[in-house]
């Protein structure tokens, strides 16, 4: 049995919108094992993206704790949280979020700019990441010159280029057609099985969720059931 990488304990998240108090997460407990591929499912507004943001250190919970690899992320000060995120988490977004003025390889290189790696070493790591996603021949292309599926694969290459502990994917196939979506899911599955990456994927799509080892369902900020 692999050890637990992510521990979410009694996590609550409250927003205030127009004077109204909205409890997005209401005392949630979730564990994710090292090397697991977890799918987070649920209707819109169920809190799945909020949970993903809390695990990734993009946001802080109102109550409870989130720890990743033994580090209590929810308690880290902003400066340390940024550094921790750069080292341990890779993000994949629904809308790819590539910088339009940079080529694929420059986009992938972005997280490495913050490291002390030499230019040659950065180049090597970018090449490796692009080869893992099968886009070596598109390295010099700008996002506008790529298809949606290719853009998302560049997004995945950017997420894995620092070899992070955890890969967080927010609706990675949400903006793709079925074929391109399947390619992206296959890529994530390959990263999980061949590289042993721990992946948490938020999705609406049951077909996409089937690729995961485990599915967690959320509704109105609470867990409503898990499928092994």
């Amino acid at each position: 049995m692999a050890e637990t990488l992510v521990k979410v304990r009694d996590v609550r998240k409250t927003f205030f919108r127009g004077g109204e108090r909205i409890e997005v997460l209401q005392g949630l407990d979730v564990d994710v094992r090292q090397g697991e591929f977890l799918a987070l499912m649920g209707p819109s507004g169920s809190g799945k993206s909020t949970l993903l943001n809390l695990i990734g250190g993009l946001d802080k919970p109102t109550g409870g704790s989130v720890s990743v690899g033994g580090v209590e992320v929810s308690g880290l000060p902003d400066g340390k949280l940024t550094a921790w995120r750069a080292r341990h988490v890779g993000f994949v977004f629904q809308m790819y979020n590539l910088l339009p003025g940079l080529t694929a390889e420059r986009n992938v290189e972005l997280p490495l700019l913050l490291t002390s790696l030499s230019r040659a070493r950065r180049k090597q790591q970018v090449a490796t990441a692009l080869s893992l996603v099968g886009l070596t021949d598109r390295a010099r292309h700008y996002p506008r010159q790529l298809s949606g599926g290719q853009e998302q694969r560049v997004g995945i290459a950017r997420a894995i280029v620092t070899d992070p502990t955890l890969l967080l994917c927010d609706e990675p196939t949400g903006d793709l057609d079925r074929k391109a979506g399947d390619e992206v899911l296959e890529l994530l599955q390959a990263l999980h099985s061949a590289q042993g990456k721990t992946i948490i994927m938020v999705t609406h799509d049951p077909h996409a969720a089937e690729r995961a080892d485990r599915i967690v369902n959320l509704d109105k900020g609470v867990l409503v059931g898990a499928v092994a």
Partner: protein
Amino acid sequence: MKFWPLLWSSLKRRKARTIFTFLSIVVAFVLFAYLGAVRVAFSAGVDVAGADRLWTTHKTSIIQPLPAAYQDQIARVPGVIMVTHASWFGGIYQDAKQGFQQVFQAPVDPEAYLTLFPEFRIPDDQKRAWIADREGVLVGEVTAKRYNWKIGDRVPIQGTFYRKKDNSTLWEFNVRGIYTGGKGVDTSQFLFHYEYFDEARQYGQGTVGWYMARIDDPKKSTETSKAIDSLFENSPAETKTVTEKMLAKSFADQIGDIGTIIQWVLAAVFFTLLLVTGNAIAQSVRERTNELAVLKTVGFSDATTLGLVLTESGLLALAGGGLGLALGSMAVGAGDPTGGFLPVFYLPTKDLVRGVFFVFLLGVVAGILPAVQAMRLRIVDALRRG
């Protein structure tokens, strides 16, 4: 350097906006350099005026002549080391359109004049040749270049005010020397022998335009001036003696406080420039909210994000301001644009340094608000908006 592709991609994101902002910065700094030189031109003489030189003119007006006999009396005033004189001539070379009347032309005592104004640089052989030739003229290099005069040339000048005894208005001179000078020195003057002028002119013999004296202690300039003027009180030609600096300043003030006017014009230009550049950077940051959030997501710290936006703003200011100052300096280096009206026309080093300071200031001030905005961006909110 590793952030360069990122910065460059931000700058070229909206090419037209970047180019127009860049051009407005270039134009502003060209203007800064050019107006700086104009300000110097109008205050010419004030900065380089000798603190130990006094000018004695007719009390009524500088155009009223003074008796040549005053020279010995002034020379005897305690504190006066030496004294010499000059007069206004105002001739025309070829035709009035040549603008020669704007050149300072004066009959002087050659040796004494050069002793009093050591800032005029002239080779020894040329100095000797000028002193030896009664019809010789010493010309500043700016004027020599302008009219393409060389040593040995015979230059005909049409007198407008002074005729010769034979009723001719033609005065001919031999170019015997061409002098140079450091920055701020008027190198446009046309100086010839007073003796030749005084003997040949139809009227006004025995008079000079004004006197210039060197004193031993600039701190006593007021007392020495009073002592000189008291010599000629109640005479038909009373005098007014002031320091060279005061005289130069009073000439500059007659035109108006050009320095202050130029400063206000430049302040308005820079204020507008600040708004234009600040707005361009702010707009660029607003459009890139999502991209900045992505950068922060992948690990760019608040400080790095702040630095990126400030560097972007700084680069724009540096490129535009640098080019503007360079072009402005080149334009100023091309010389007096009025063809002789502004003989001292250059951009002082201190103004250039001030320009470089303004370039950096522009980069920081225009970029600071958008940079702080980018720094404070909350990733989750920005991604949701994106």
